[in-house]
């Protein structure tokens, strides 16, 4: 039986906030600061209300309740997945012990850091996307943007709840700092690089929600395994919402590819830019960019921190429970492919536990391939003999073993001059960006859509595409 979310309180929750005066006071102190941040850094487009999904309960039935809601009246709150009574730690040296309901003193700093880094990404994407409302290709897309935004806001709440509830005064300070950093700010940037990149157009937004939010899915998946049960339950519920963000990305790119395919067929040319479409070549460059920047989010291929987190039980592997090994990883090894200065690839043998970031990244890459397969199916069905693809994992990297090298999308190690000459073919140029920008004109009429993207095959919650998802102010 899923517990309902109490919407009668100032802060909706299913954690019985009213019985914890201290926590209530702390969160009520933070709430106006969050609202301030939302009004300053949230969506710039003014709306009356938006057809949003809101969780009323964390169980299967209750987490997707739809209604028109005023954006700034969205009831951000604290929703944790149901507690599993007998849950035990699944990995590391505490494997088999009961999970923790409190933070162990020994791991407080590490856990806090993990939560702060996760928390920092959530409001960052809202900031990165704040101007996109001004150029939405349809009301349907506009609604999806806002859905993503309010949920990122709620995910921020989720992390802030943990900081407030379990990390004392320092946790509260850190929670406040999450609102003081801003994406791309020269003085106070977000912690991770990808969250300081601009999301200037809708193709970038689709790519971001496909590639970068998918990183989020995998990070949350590893935190869901945590021995610290409140973190685990928080992430479990966040994962449900995250799935929609990736849906926006997957179908968004689908629709751009479909529209480009249509224009290619219609005009019998790949040069569809003059016809208001986005050429496949530019789509490929966007894939190259967003994919490689997102790979950086996994951190260095070898990581002592990740190994320590694993041993301590703080952060597991993707689907830890399904892995068939000892869940301690102290005795096994693996190979790490590394570029060599002479332009060839080598392999280094390392212990498994030091390569957990690589393990997670490989799961992610396999998942990313699904999207590419979908997009290529659309091209194939349109009879177009071109394929999109993911570049080599070493391409355009700024973190980890590849960061000191220049590697082509095919995995060829290049000297700097060759790379500089060729990189315009592989990454969006300022002309490409300007061109895509030039297509970004808002279409706010019901049932209408911009020239460069196909309409969705289904609306939201069984509603038609023509439905008035957003009432503009």
């Amino acid at each position: 039986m899923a517990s309902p979310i109490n919407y009668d309180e100032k802060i909706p929750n299913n954690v019985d906030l009213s019985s914890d005066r201290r926590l209530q006071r702390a969160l009520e102190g933070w709430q106006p600061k969050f609202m301030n941040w939302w009004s300053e850094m949230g969506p710039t487009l003014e709306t009356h209300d938006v057809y949003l999904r809101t969780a009323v309960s964390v169980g299967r039935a209750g987490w997707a309740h739809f209604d028109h809601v005023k954006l700034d009246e969205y009831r951000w709150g604290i929703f944790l997945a149901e507690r599993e009574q007998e849950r035990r730690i699944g990995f590391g040296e505490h494997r088999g012990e009961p999970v923790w309901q409190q933070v162990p003193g020994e791991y407080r700093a590490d856990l806090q850091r993990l939560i702060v880094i996760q928390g920092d990404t959530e409001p960052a994407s809202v900031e990165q996307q704040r101007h996109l409302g001004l150029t939405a290709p349809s009301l349907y897309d506009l609604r999806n943007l806002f859905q993503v935004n309010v949920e990122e806001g709620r995910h921020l709440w989720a992390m802030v709840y943990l900081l407030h509830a379990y990390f004392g005064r320092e946790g509260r300070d850190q929670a406040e700092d999450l609102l003081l950093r801003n994406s791309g700010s020269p003085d106070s940037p977000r912690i991770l690089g990808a969250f300081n990149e601009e999301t200037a157009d809708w193709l970038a937004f689709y790519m971001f929600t496909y590639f970068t939010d998918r990183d989020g899915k995998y990070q949350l998946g590893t935190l869901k395994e945590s021995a610290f049960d409140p973190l685990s339950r928080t992430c479990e519920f966040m994962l449900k919402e995250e799935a929609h963000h990736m849906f926006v990305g997957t179908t968004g790119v689908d629709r751009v590819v479909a529209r480009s395919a249509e224009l290619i067929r219609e005009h019998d040319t790949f040069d569809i830019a003059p016809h208001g479409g986005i050429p496949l070549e530019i789509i490929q460059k966007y894939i190259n960019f967003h994919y490689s920047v997102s790979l950086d989010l996994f951190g260095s291929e070898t990581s002592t921190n990740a190994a320590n987190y694993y041993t301590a039980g703080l952060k597991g592997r993707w689907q830890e429970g399904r892995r068939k090994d000892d869940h301690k990883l102290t005795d096994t090894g693996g190979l790490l492919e590394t570029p060599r200065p002479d332009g060839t690839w080598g392999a280094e043998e390392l212990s498994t536990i030091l390569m957990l970031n690589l393990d997670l990244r490989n799961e992610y890459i396999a998942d990313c391939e699904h999207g590419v397969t979908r997009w290529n199916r659309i091209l194939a069905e349109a009879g177009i003999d071109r394929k999109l693809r993911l570049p080599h994992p070493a391409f355009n990297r700024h973190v980890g073993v590849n960061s000191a090298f220049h590697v082509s999308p095919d995995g060829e190690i290049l000297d700097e001059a060759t790379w500089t000459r060729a990189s315009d073919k592989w990454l969006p140029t300022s002309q490409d960006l300007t061109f895509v920008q030039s297509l970004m004109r808002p279409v706010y009429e019901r049932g209408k859509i911009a020239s460069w993207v196909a309409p969705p095959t289904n609306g939201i919650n069984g509603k038609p595409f023509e439905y008035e998802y957003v009432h503009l102010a």
Partner: protein
Amino acid sequence: MSFDAHPDTYRHWRMRVEGELAWLVLDVDESAGIVPGYELKLNSYDLGVDIELYDATQRLRFEHPEVRTVIVTSGKDRVFCAGANIRMLAASSHEWKVNFCKFTNETRNGMEDATEHSGQTYLAAVNGSCAGGGYELALACDHIVLVDDNSSAVALPEVPLLGVLPGTGGLTRLVDKRRVRKDRADVFATRSDGMRGRPAVQWGLVDEVVPPRRFDEVVRERALEAAERSTRPKDAKGIELTPLRREVDEDGIRYRYVKAAYERDLGLVKITVHASEDENWPLTVTRELDDLILRLRTNETELGTWVFTTAGDPDAVLAQEHRLLNDDSWLGNEIRHYYKRVLKRLDVTSRSLIALIEPGSCFVGMLLELAFACDRQYMLDGPPIDDEDSDERAAIQLTPANFGPFPMGNGLTRLQSRFYGEDVGRLSELDKPVDAVEAADLGLVTEAFDDIDWTDEIRIVLEGRASLSPDALTGMEANHRFVGPETLETKIFARLTAWQNWIFNRPNAAGPDGALRRYGTGQKPVFDRKRV
């Protein structure tokens, strides 16, 4: 192992001089560790990195009298310095670790010495994360500016992460130099993630935090302010520190004025310092001694006794010293302080130091300080051993050099240390050569043996010494050398090196499951919970 370096061949530092400001930019070449087996990630350092730093600090003092402020910063993005490389430490032998710590400490003390005595202020421009020895490098500077970019922190994570102490004076400088309250120092030194931003300033861990966009500007501003206060000359021309002339072989090392001859069966090295009238002698002999001490410490760990002798005309030494002590130029000042630092290196050297004062030696004034730095002094009362008809006799002579210009790390002269609690003023009137009997009477030497006993007695002293436990000797000598008051410097060496020496040997740090060895494996250390 060589300690030679030159800015043209630095692998890890870039030195840039712009008028009165100099930049020392740490940009460690990961793949250029001084011994194979580890990568110097995150601007971490090993002995090779520090040899270059020491070279740079020396050149800034001698070759660049115009430099008034030295800015220490990082050439890497978002990383200032992660401190000593942990894999290097974990893989190193015990004596290598301790000796490495000693050298890094001496270099950092030298930076403070430059600020205090040479008008060359060190300023840390901490432009990225700064942990462990990285923060200790900053602590050795006079002023610390930390970038306020939400991620850069200062930290001393040795205790929580490695089970050891910060190795270059971090704990001492926090409370003694920066006056961080001791309870806060405790909190800080047990948090692996350190502190950033305003709290770091409030606690006194750094002097100011500056947003990234204003960082370079503020650093330059502070550097110019410090330069303004400097007494360095405006128009002086530096002198080049040219490569030392040196022959090295199995039997020893021979420089121009300093010779070292190994006697491996006795585990000793005989070091002879020659006098000269050459005007470059004071600086050259100082550099040679410096280089010799460093090489012997690192390369000849089993030569546990150093026997010091001198040779040449005492009057030549007196004349050199007179010129040096009365030279009020910047260069005279530099040489005096350099000689002082080399003597201090000797004071903290973990070797038994014995001075043999024989006819034909020139242990006067500044060279007599070498003898006073030794644990024992033996003086021959009689003719040279190989020429019993000679009427040459050994003599020593006290000069103003023994009463102030070359203090030890405890702030006392070696005479004050020797006669701790007594007034040594009475000795300052002794303005003449002193023979063996009088020297023994005055307490200036340990024993005065006559020529009949000399050879045998000295042999027995050296053989006896070689038979004792080196560890016990190291501890005993360090205890005796540093009498009286503590200073920041003696605390760093005595407390820290001693504690660290112990901790580095304990299973909790250095055992197969200890924190230092487990670091980086992803496995937790196993501690013996008993408090010792």
